[in-house]
C-alpha cells in the first residue's frame, strides 16, 4: 500500500508539524517538508512502470456495501498532478517560512497546509470515485480553514465561507453524479468506470450524471458562473493563494474532467457544456483581470481565465486539445505560482498590493523584478517561455475545431481576444509595478529585496518556465506523454513539442494577440474609463445578502409554523389522528353481526346522566369549580358503569383515584383563576367544536361497530390458569401481579417517577395565591374546624384496617394493593386536610421518598426472588397453610409484590399532594381568634 502511504504521509505530518512550532519557523518548515520528500522518494521507483504507459493500482477493501474501497492508482495523469502538488508544495513551504510573521500561529498554518496537500494527493491518486469524493470535500474544508487563516478579518471569513459554500455545494452535486455513474457501471472503481465509457454515454442517466459531475468540476475550478469565489479566496495568505488557488486545488476540477475524459467526453453535451463554459470563463477572466488594481486580484482573474482556457481545451474533445490542456496545466502552474509569490514578496516589502501606489520597483528590487517579468511574459505567451507553447497549441486547436458555418469563427476569435487581454494585463503587471514612475506613499518605504531564501522558490519556478519553454521535449516530454496516454486511455496522437512550428496561423494569432495587447495596454485609460461606467458588484456582499435573506426568510417561515401555540400543535395531533383513521374506517360496517342488546331503564337513566354531565362539564367549563363538580359526577358514574359492567376492581380503582384527583384539582384551583376568560374567537371555537365532534362521532361509531362484532381473545387462558397457576380467584388481580406483573412494575414506577418529578418541580417554590375567592370574599379564618378534626381521628385507624382488609382479599376478591394504597393515602390526606401539614408531618415517621422507594424495592425483590430458583423474573409461588384456630389460609409471593404496589401508591400519592400542600404561603391565621388578635 505504498500509494496510500503517499496520501497518508502529509496527514501524519499535519499531526506532527505543530509539535515543532516551538522550534520556530525554520524547524517547522523543515519538519513539514519531510512528508513531501518521503512521498517523492516513494513515487520515484514507480516511474519505470509508468514510462511504459502502465498504471499501478493498489486496493484495500473498506466498505463493500457502498462499493467504496481504499484503492489508489498511479498513472501518468495522477503522477503529473502528484508531482505538481509535491514539488510546488515544497517551494510553498520554504516561501511561507519567510512570508509568515513569527508571532503568527505557524503550527496551525503548516498543519492545515499539509492536510490540504494530503487531501489533494488523495484526489489525484484515488482509484475509487467515492474515495476521491472524500478527499474532494476535504480540500474544500481545508481550503476554507486556510482562507480564513486570518479569521479576525471580516473579508477573510466571508471569502472562506463563500468558497466553502460554492465548492462544498458543488461537491454534493458531484457526489450525486458519481453515485449515478456507479449505478450505471455497477462499480466505483476507476478501472471499471473508464472501461465502461460507451455504456455510460449510452445510458439514460448519462445527461444527469454528466451535468452533476460538471457542476462539481466547474465550481471547484471556478468556471463561469461560479468563478466569483476564487478572487475572494485571495484573502488567504499569499502562499495559500499561490498553492491552492493557482497551482493545485482549482485544478482539481480540471483533473476530474481529464480523469473521467474517457468515460464522459466525446458527446455533444460534453462538447457544448464544457467548451462553452470554458470559453466564457476564459474571456470574462481575462477581461476583468485587466482592471484589477490589486496585484493578487489581477492574478486571480487571470487564473480564472486560464482555467477557462484549459476547460475549453478539454471541451473541444480532440486528443490534441486534451494534450494541450495537460501541457497548459503544467505551464500555468509554474508561472502563476511564481507570479503569486512575487506578488507576495512585493506585498511583503511594500506593505500594499495596490498597483496605483506601487510603481517603479525596478529600482528597488531588480532581482525580484526580473523574475516576475519573466513569469509575466510566460503568462502573456511570449516565445521561448512555456506559456507560449501551450498557447500555440491552444490556438491551433481553436482553428482546427470544425464547427458548422459561422460558428467556426467563434473559437479562434475568442482565443485571440483572450490572448489580447492576457498580453494587456501581463503588460500591466510588468509596467505598472516595476516602472511607471515613482512609488506613491507606500506603507513601507523604501522597499528592498526580500530575504535571500524567499526568492529561491520563485527562481526555481522561473527557471522551470524557461527550461520548458526552450527544451520542452527534453524537460516535460515524457511526463506529458505519460499523462496524455493516461488521460486518453490509449493512443496518444503525435504532437510536436517544438519551440517553433514555422510561420503558421497560430503564430499569426499569437503575434496579433501580442501587438493587440500592447496597444490595448497603451490605450488603457480609455478602457478603464469605459469599465468604470459599470459599477462593480462585490460578490461577497451579494453572497452575504443572499445568506442573510435566507436566514431571515427561514426565521419567518419557522416562526410561522413553530409559533409556540400549544393549541395548534394539539390540533395538528388530533387532526392527524382523525385523518389517518377516517380512510380505513369509512369501509366499516356500523353494526356488527352480533347486533344490539336491550338496556334496562335505570342503566339508561345513568347513561343519560353521564352524557349530560359530560357535556355539562364542557358547557360551563369556564366556571371552574362548577365544571369540577360536574367532572366528579362523571367520575362517580364512570365508576358505577364499571360496576354495572362486571368490573368491581375497576369501579373501586376509579372511585378512589377520582377523589384523589379531585383533591389535587382543588389544591390547584386555589392558585389559579377561578374562572376562564373567553380566549378564542368564535371561529376558533367552531373549528375546535368540529374537530371534537368528528372525534366524538368517530369514537361512537368505532365503539358501536366493535361492541357488536364477535370476539375471542387469549383470556380464557387467564380464567383457566388464574387459580391453579396464580393461586388467586380474582383473575384481574392475578393478571396484575402475576401474568402481567411486569406491566404493574412499570406502572408503579411511573407513579413513583411522577411523584419525584412533582417534588423536584415544586421544591423551594412559593406560589402566590389570590387573597379572596372567586366572588371576592376574603378567605375564612378557621383552617381546621373542630368537628372535622375530631372525626378525622378515628378515621385513620379504621381506614388502615379497611386497607388491610382490601389488600388481603385482593388476590381472591375485588381489591388489592393499589386500591388499599389509595385508601390509606386518602385517610392520611384527611389528616392533612383536617389538622394541617405541620401537625400531620410531625406524626409521620417515614419520608415518603423512602416509602415509595421501599415499594419499588419490594416489588423488584419479590420479582428477583424467583431468579434464585432458576425461574424467570416475577415468577410467583403460593402455598396453603393450615394452622390451629386460624384454619387453612393461603400464602402467596404475589402478595409481597402487591405490598410493593401498596407502598409505592401510598408514598407517591402523599409525596405529590403534600408537596403541593406545602406551597401555601405561611403565616395565614389558622383560627378566628388568631385573626381577631391580629386585626
Amino acid at each position, binding site marked *: 500500500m505504498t500509494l496510500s502511504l503517499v496520501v497518508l504521509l502529509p496527514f501524519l505530518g499535519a499531526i506532527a508539524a505543530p509539535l515543532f512550532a516551538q522550534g520556530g519557523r525554520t524547524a517547522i518548515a523543515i519538519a513539514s517538508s519531510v512528508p513531501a520528500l518521503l512521498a517523492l522518494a516513494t513515487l520515484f521507483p514507480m516511474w519505470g512502470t509508468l514510462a511504459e504507459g502502465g498504471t499501478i493500482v493498489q486496493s484495500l477493501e473498506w466498505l463493500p456495501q457502498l462499493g467504496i474501497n481504499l484503492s489508489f492508482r498511479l498513472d501518468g495523469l495522477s503522477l503529473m498532478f502528484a508531482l505538481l502538488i509535491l514539488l510546488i508544495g515544497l517551494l510553498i513551504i520554504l516561501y511561507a517560512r519567510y512570508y509568515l510573521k513569527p508571532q503568527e500561529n505557524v503550527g496551525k498554518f503548516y498543519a492545515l497546509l499539509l492536510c490540504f496537500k494530503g487531501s489533494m494527493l488523495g484526489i489525484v491518486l484515488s482509484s475509487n470515485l467515492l474515495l476521491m469524493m472524500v478527499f474532494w470535500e476535504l480540500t474544500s474544508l481545508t481550503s476554507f480553514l486556510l482562507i480564513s487563516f486570518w479569521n479576525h478579518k471580516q473579508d477573510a471569513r466571508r471569502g472562506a465561507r463563500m468558497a466553502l459554500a460554492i465548492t462544498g455545494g458543488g461537491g454534493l452535486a458531484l457526489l450525486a453524479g458519481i453515485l449515478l455513474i456507479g449505478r450505471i457501471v455497477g462499480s466505483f472503481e476507476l478501472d471499471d468506470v473508464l472501461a465502461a465509457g460507451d455504456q455510460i454515454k449510452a445510458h439514460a442517466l448519462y445527461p444527469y450524471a454528466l451535468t452533476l459531475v460538471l457542476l462539481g468540476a466547474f465550481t471547484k475550478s471556478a468556471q463561469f458562473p461560479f468563478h466569483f469565489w476564487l478572487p475572494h479566496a485571495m484573502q488567504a495568505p499569499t502562499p495559500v493563494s499561490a498553492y491552492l488557488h493557482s497551482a493545485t486545488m482549482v485544478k482539481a476540477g480540471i483533473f476530474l474532467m481529464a480523469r473521467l475524459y474517457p468515460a464522459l467526453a466525446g458527446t455533444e453535451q460534453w462538447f457544448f457544456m464544457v467548451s462553452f463554459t470554458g470559453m466564457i470563463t476564459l474571456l470574462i477572466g481575462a477581461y476583468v483581470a485587466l482592471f484589477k488594481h490589486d496585484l493578487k486580484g489581477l492574478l486571480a482573474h487571470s487564473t480564472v481565465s486560464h482555467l477557462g482556457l484549459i476547460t475549453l481545451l478539454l471541451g473541444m474533445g480532440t486528443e490534441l486539445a486534451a494534450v494541450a490542456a495537460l501541457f497548459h496545466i503544467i505551464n500555468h502552474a509554474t508561472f502563476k505560482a511564481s507570479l503569486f509569490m512575487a506578488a507576495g514578496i512585493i506585498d511583503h516589502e511594500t506593505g500594499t498590493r495596490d498597483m496605483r501606489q506601487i510603481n517603479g520597483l525596478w529600482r528597488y528590487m531588480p532581482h525580484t523584478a526580473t523574475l516576475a517579468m519573466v513569469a509575466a511574459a510566460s503568462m502573456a505567451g511570449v516565445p521561448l517561455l512555456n506559456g507560449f507553447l501551450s498557447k500555440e497549441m491552444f490556438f491551433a486547436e481553436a482553428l482546427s475545431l470544425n464547427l458548422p458555418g459561422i460558428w467556426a469563427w467563434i473559437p479562434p476569435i475568442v482565443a485571440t481576444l483572450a490572448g489580447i487581454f492576457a498580453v494587456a494585463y501581463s503588460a500591466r503587471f510588468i509596467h505598472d509595478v516595476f516602472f511607471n514612475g515613482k512609488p506613491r506613499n507606500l506603507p513601507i518605504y523604501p522597499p528592498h529585496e526580500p530575504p535571500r531564501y524567499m526568492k529561491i522558490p520563485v527562481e526555481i519556478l522561473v527557471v522551470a518556465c524557461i527550461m520548458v519553454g526552450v527544451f520542452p521535449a527534453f524537460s516535460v516530454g515524457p511526463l506529458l506523454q505519460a499523462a496524455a496516454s493516461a488521460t486518453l486511455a490509449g493512443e496518444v496522437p503525435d504532437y510536436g513539442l517544438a519551440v517553433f512550428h514555422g510561420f503558421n496561423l497560430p503564430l499569426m494569432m499569437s503575434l496579433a494577440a501580442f501587438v493587440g495587447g500592447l496597444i490595448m495596454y497603451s490605450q488603457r485609460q480609455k478602457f478603464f474609463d469605459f469599465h468604470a461606467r459599470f459599477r462593480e458588484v462585490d460578490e461577497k456582499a451579494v453572497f452575504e445578502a443572499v445568506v442573510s435573506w435566507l436566514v431571515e426568510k427561514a426565521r419567518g417561515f419557522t416562526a410561522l409554523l413553530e409559533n409556540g401555540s400549544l393549541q395548534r400543535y394539539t390540533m395538528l395531533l388530533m387532526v392527524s389522528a382523525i385523518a389517518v383513521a377516517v380512510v380505513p374506517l369509512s369501509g366499516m360496517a356500523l353494526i356488527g353481526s352480533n347486533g344490539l342488546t336491550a338496556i334496562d331503564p335505570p342503566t339508561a337513566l345513568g347513561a343519560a346522566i353521564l352524557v349530560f354531565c359530560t357535556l355539562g362539564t364542557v358547557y360551563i367549563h369556564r366556571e371552574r369549580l362548577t365544571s369540577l363538580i360536574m367532572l366528579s359526577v362523571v367520575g362517580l358514574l364512570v365508576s358505577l358503569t364499571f360496576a354495572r359492567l362486571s368490573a368491581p376492581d375497576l369501579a373501586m380503582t376509579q372511585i378512589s383515584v377520582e377523589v384523589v384527583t379531585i383533591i389535587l384539582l382543588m389544591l390547584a384551583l386555589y392558585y389559579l383563576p377561578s374562572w376562564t376568560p373567553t380566549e378564542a374567537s368564535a371561529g376558533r371555537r367552531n373549528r375546535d367544536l368540529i374537530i371534537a365532534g368528528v372525534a366524538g362521532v368517530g369514537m361512537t361509531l368505532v365503539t358501536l361497530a366493535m361492541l357488536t362484532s364477535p370476539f375471542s381473545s387469549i383470556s380464557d387462558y387467564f380464567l383457566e390458569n388464574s387459580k391453579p397457576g396464580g393461586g388467586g380467584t380474582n383473575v384481574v388481580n392475578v393478571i396484575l401481579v402475576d401474568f402481567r406483573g411486569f406491566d404493574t412494575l412499570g406502572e408503579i414506577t411511573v407513579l413513583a417517577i411522577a411523584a419525584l418529578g412533582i417534588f423536584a418541580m415544586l421544591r423551594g417554590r412559593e406560589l402566590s395565591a389570590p387573597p379572596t375567592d372567586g366572588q371576592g370574599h376574603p378567605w375564612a379564618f378557621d383552617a381546621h374546624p*373542630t368537628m372535622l378534626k*375530631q372525626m378525622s381521628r*378515628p378515621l*385513620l*385507624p*379504621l381506614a388502615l*384496617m379497611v386497607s388491610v382488609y382490601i389488600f388481603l382479599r385482593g388476590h381472591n376478591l375485588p381489591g388489592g394493593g393499589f386500591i388499599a394504597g389509595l385508601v390509606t393515602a386518602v385517610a392520611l390526606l384527611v389528616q392533612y386536610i383536617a389538622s394541617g401539614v405541620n401537625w400531620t408531618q410531625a406524626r409521620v415517621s417515614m419520608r415518603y421518598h423512602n416509602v415509595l422507594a421501599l415499594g419499588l424495592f419490594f416489588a423488584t425483590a419479590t420479582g428477583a426472588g424467583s431468579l434464585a430458583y432458576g425461574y424467570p423474573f416475577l415468577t410467583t409461588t403460593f402455598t396453603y397453610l393450615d394452622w390451629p*384456630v386460624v384454619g387453612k389460609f393461603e400464602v402467596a409471593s404475589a402478595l409481597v409484590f402487591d405490598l410493593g404496589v401498596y407502598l409505592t401508591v401510598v408514598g407517591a400519592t402523599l409525596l405529590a399532594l403534600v408537596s403541593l400542600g406545602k406551597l401555601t404561603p405561611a403565616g395565614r391565621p389558622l383560627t378566628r381568634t388568631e385573626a381577631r388578635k391580629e386585626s
Partner: protein
Amino acid sequence: MTAERLGFPQPWLTVALFVVWQFLADSVTGASVVMGLILGVVIPQITHRFWPDSPSMKKPWVLVRYLTVVLYDIIVASISVTILILSPRQPRSAFVSYPLQLHDPLGITILANTISLTPGTVSADVSDDGTLLLIHALDVDDDAELIRAIHQRYEKPLLEMFR
C-alpha cells in the same frame, strides 16, 4: 402510660377495631378473631400519635342507651322532615346559638353530630373556644324549648360520659 407500654395506647380503639374486623370478615371465625386481635393491637401502635387527645370514656353502658335513643330519634326526625318536605307550607327556619356545657371536643362533636341527625336541626358551627354551638333549625317556633330539649335528651348523657 402503662397501658401504652403494654401495647394498648387506646384500649377502646382496640376493642372497636376488633369488632369492626369481625364485621368486615362477615363472621366470627378463628381466623377473623386472630386477625382482629393482631390488627387491634398493631394499628393503634401506628396511629395513636394521630389521636393525641384520645377519648377518656366513663360509663360505656350510657353510650348504649344513648345510641338507642338517637337511632329512634333519627327515624322520627326523618318522618317529620319528610312530612315537612311534602307539605306546601313554608318552614320557619332559625339559627340558634346553643350554650355548651360539654368541654371534651369529642363529646362536643358527638353532640353536634347527633343534633345534625335528629329533628329538623343541623349543627352549623362550633365557636373556637368551644362554648357555643350554632344550630340551624329547619322548622321551629321556640328556640328556648329547642335548647332545653337538646340539653335534656343528648347533652346530659354525654356529660355523664365525658366528664
